[in-house]
């Protein structure tokens, strides 16, 4: 469904991605592991059209999407939850959700269903729906960022380090929501530093180092053989 083939990306003159190839199939949860600064976030930004690939091909459902504007990608069914969450701080929680709901072609009934669904998964968002996004705690902001992406009814969600800096209770809530999304048939490309979570949630895992994919294996295989993890991630 989503495929990167030999993608090269630059920030100015620095060469960040050196030929990354990744594939995500419909409804699949795929993990992307690696240390800080190896290009995981840049990979997601390249898919989302925030950075333009200098070389290589990015394709979604068979059509090339390299250089397409982010809002067109969102219409195609790609949602993005950035590492820094990027909540609209002065919009209320409900208004943050409305940025994905207030679009042409969505019936009032469907809007209500989508809202009730995320309120069901994240009751705290219902409680705080009239509060400014900037006043939420880090964990709540992360939930809001994921909930906001769900408003787009995406086919795939690009999740950038959703558990970073969260306390364990919040981490397990993120794990639950990944399962719910997976059950609903939404594909996820999960960038993480949290190895146990990634191995548990994903079906396949790519490991990146210095801008290239060094290793690619089913998660079950990595769970059984942690030597590879030690080799690339030093944990």
């Amino acid at each position, binding site marked *: 469904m989503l495929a990167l083939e030999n993608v090269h990306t630059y920030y100015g003159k620095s060469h960040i991605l050196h030929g990354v190839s990744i594939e995500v199939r419909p409804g699949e949860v795929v993990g992307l592991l690696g240390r800080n600064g190896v290009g995981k976030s840049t990979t997601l930004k390249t898919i989302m059209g925030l950075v333009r690939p200098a070389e290589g091909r990015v394709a979604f459902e068979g059509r090339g999407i390299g250089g397409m504007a*982010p809002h067109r990608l969102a219409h195609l069914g790609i949602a993005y939850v950035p590492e820094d969450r990027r909540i609209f701080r*002065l919009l*209320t929680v409900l208004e943050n959700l409305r*940025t994905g709901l207030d679009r042409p072609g969505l019936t009032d009934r469907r809007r209500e269903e989508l809202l009730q669904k995320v309120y069901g998964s994240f009751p705290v968002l219902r409680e705080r729906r009239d509060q400014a996004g900037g006043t939420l705690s880090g964990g709540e902001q992360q939930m809001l960022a994921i909930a*906001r992406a769900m408003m787009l009814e995406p086919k795939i969600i690009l999740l950038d380090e959703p558990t970073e800096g969260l306390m364990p209770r919040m981490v397990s809530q993120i794990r639950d929501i990944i399962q719910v999304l997976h059950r609903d048939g939404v594909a996820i490309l999960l960038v993480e530093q949290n190895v146990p979570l990634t191995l548990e949630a994903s079906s396949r895992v790519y490991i990146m180092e210095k801008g290239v994919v060094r290793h690619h294996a089913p998660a079950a295989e990595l769970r059984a053989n942690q030597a590879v993890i030690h080799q690339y991630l030093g944990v």
Partner: protein
Amino acid sequence: MAIPFDQILIQTVNGLVNGMILALVASGLTLIFGIMDVVNFAHGDLVMLGAFVGATTIAATGSFWLAFLVAALVIAVFGAALQASTLRPLLGRDPLTTILATFGISLVLQKYALWQWGPSARKIQEPITGQFAMFYLEYPWYRVATAFFAGAIIGAFWLFLKYGRYGIWIRATMQDRIMASAMGIPVPLVHTAVFAIGAAMAAASGVLFGPLGGVTQTMGFDFTLRAFIVVVVGGMGNLGGSILAAIFISLLEAYASIIVSPSQAVIVSFMALILTLLFRPTGLFVPTPSSSGACWRCRRTS
């Protein structure tokens, strides 16, 4: 020196009336800055063009209110074309390029108006001619009506931003252009639409102001300058702050003109501008995320 109570009251009404027209001009300017980081130095010239289009329509049809609508629509379409052709390609570049571009547009529009409508001032006939007694003055109802009318336009726009389906697009784009885009909001279209709305508000102010001050091809500069002062004092890109600042500055000038001549009273606006830049460069009326959902702009994340 004792200041008579009646003068203070008259100047308060004057300040509010001028403040509301200024607020309507400044709303557009601050909106355009807030969403595109573009200081539109041609904004006053959109006021001027609107006033001329209004005056021409009145001459042809005799209807003030039709002229008001025609001016707002024509200048909105013109504004959209201007943004798409001139400003969109410059988005994200050094602010100096957009300052130069809009300054250039300002000059072109002034010369166009001179060529099209000639150098002499035009007067728009006010649609409401009654007056009421206020102390020793016969105060025209039309002046009061303009304040209400400007207030109604700003209020309607505020409601649209807060509750309208596409109002949320504008507020989200103002706060974080990139995330708004990732949420499927067509940001380039929003930019063009906001410029068109700002231009329509400027044109509306021009027609409303026409009966009070006359229409000339150089009237725009004064509006740009005042609106710019208001936008800085109110906090760049902050709509609520700009409206408060417009009323604040206009009241200051009105009260100052009790003591000094009206042309000297302008000095207090500049003093307010300089003091704001020195002591509160972010503006006097700036929202923070903690102060409820009514405020909708804060530091940009990129």
